[in-house]
């Protein structure tokens, strides 16, 4: 059996689902961020795989590049916010930060 597009899609689909799983179940804010990175990476695999299998040229790779940059930015800002949260609440457990509700 030769490797086709579907193989890559399955990998990305699993990665995407694992990302969501991490986001929902982990209490630690940094673990939640890791889940978000999974989602972005899953999309990237999609972009490049589609680009190669559909012969869409270099477009997919450029998009992937952009996404990587955005992911880095997102991680930086998120970690800054998490650090500040730690200063304020002395915890980074997302579920304990629930003063704003109802």
């Amino acid at each position, binding site marked *: 059996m030769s490797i086709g597009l579907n193989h890559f899609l399955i990998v990305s689909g699993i990665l*995407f689902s694992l*990302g*969501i799983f991490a*986001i929902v179940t982990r209490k630690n*804010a940094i673990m*939640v*961020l890791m889940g*978000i990175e999974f*989602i*972005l990476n*899953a*999309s*990237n695999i*999609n*972009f490049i*795989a*589609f*680009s190669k299998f*559909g012969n*869409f*040229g*270099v*477009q*997919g790779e450029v*998009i992937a590049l*952009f*996404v990587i940059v*955005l992911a880095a*930015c*997102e991680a930086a*800002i*998120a970690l*800054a*916010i*998490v650090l*500040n*949260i730690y*200063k*304020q*609440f002395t915890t980074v457990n*997302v579920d304990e*930060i*629930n*003063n*704003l*509700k*109802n």
Partner: protein
Amino acid sequence: MVINTIFNSFHLIGPEIAVALLLLAVVIFDLAFPKNKKFLPWLTITGIIVAGFLTVKQYSLESGFVFESGNTQGLIVIDNFAFFFKLLILGVSLLIILFSVSSEELKNCYDRAGEYYTLITGMILGMFFMVSTVDLITLYISIELVSFSSYVLAGFIKKSKRSSEAGLKYIIYGAVASGIMLFGISLVFGYTGTTNFYQINHIVVHSLSPDFLLSLAFILIFVGFGYKISAVPFHFWTPDVYEGAPTTITAYLSVASKAAGFALLIRFVKIIFFTGIDENGYWILSKAFNWSYLLIIISVLTMTVGNFAALWQNNVKRMLAYSSIAHAGYMLAALTMLSEQGLLAIVVYFVVYGLTNLGAFYIVLLIHNKTGSEEIDDYDGLGYQMPLMGVAMTILLVSLTGLPPTAGFIGKLYVFISILDAPHYTLAVIVALNSVVSLYYYVRIIKHLYLNNPKVEREFTFPVTQTILVLVLTIPVIILGLYFGPLLEMGKVSLRMFGF
């Protein structure tokens, strides 16, 4: 050749360039003159006015692609639709910066004023791209640009637990929503091989039945839009972030960022699925995805959840947050009709809603400045202690409810007209019932202002500048309620999108 087309496009993005330069100017000014932070808002305002001037100059331009070249077929377009939203965004930003000057909350972060105005400028830039993009990847990047700035701004008051919490919730929620959207975009890219709306349209037009994969992809993308316009069930971040964020930022998010989100959603739906238009102005959309059905469900959910949840709120800011969700629902109801009439209603509604909501948030901010509270119980008897603000707040709340003779009535009237024109009576009844429910919680604030006895005897005086700003927001609400011809004309002109 390619380079030439790029250079030829530069004069078309004058406003964007101006905003980008403004951003740099603010950064440089802040670094060069760290002692003179009080000039920063005025520098920003100057920049916004320049950008506004450049935008107005674009009005006469033919609509068209910008950066049209090779593979991408243009990333953004110039057209009246974008023009309208750009002006709206600039106007709102101008007011927000004026609000920020009088905010006591932000005085605590005075040494970081440079960052504050830089980030607001960043949001403006992002929203400019949002309202004019016709490319999925530009769409994603511009949404992220707006989001990143607003994450930081929502958590801007570091010492405040509320604000920090708002920042954290916002970024986690926003990152997930945009991640899901990006996955959807990747699927669309895989299916069509392009990210350009018009080229996607070429492929989608020919579908005669809903395509499962495309539907999946569009629902995933819709998560991103839903999060941006806080449509139920993607609204959960809204009350928390709105309550926790600095009031200026709450007002900004509730109007400008929502407007940009709507502009994007409308353009996305209209351009990608457009196959024709019938003689009554109703769009004939591709069968690839049943937008009408989805939007009706979402809009009914949005307005209902917004209004009913607002019933129980005791924090005025949070109540206004829910009410802004409900208003998004009304606008979605107009969009549901997928017609020019509905689009007109949205455009009119945005002007009206923007003015009114900004005014309401500003008065909440001023009251917070004086009393340090946003709880509705602390509003008791304020109507007598601050007569002008009390009257202005009453007018604004009446407008939010949508009763004549205020501008809110005109907004709602056009939503109703577009719905009844279809005709879609069930939806009209739902909108009407929701308005009745909303009356209850708006009137509740008025009741606290006037009928409850004040707990503490106090006199409030406001600087003339703040009074004038309140009047600037309130008087047009009345005037537009009585005389809305130009608003309508402007709305009609603004509907023209590139390619149609």
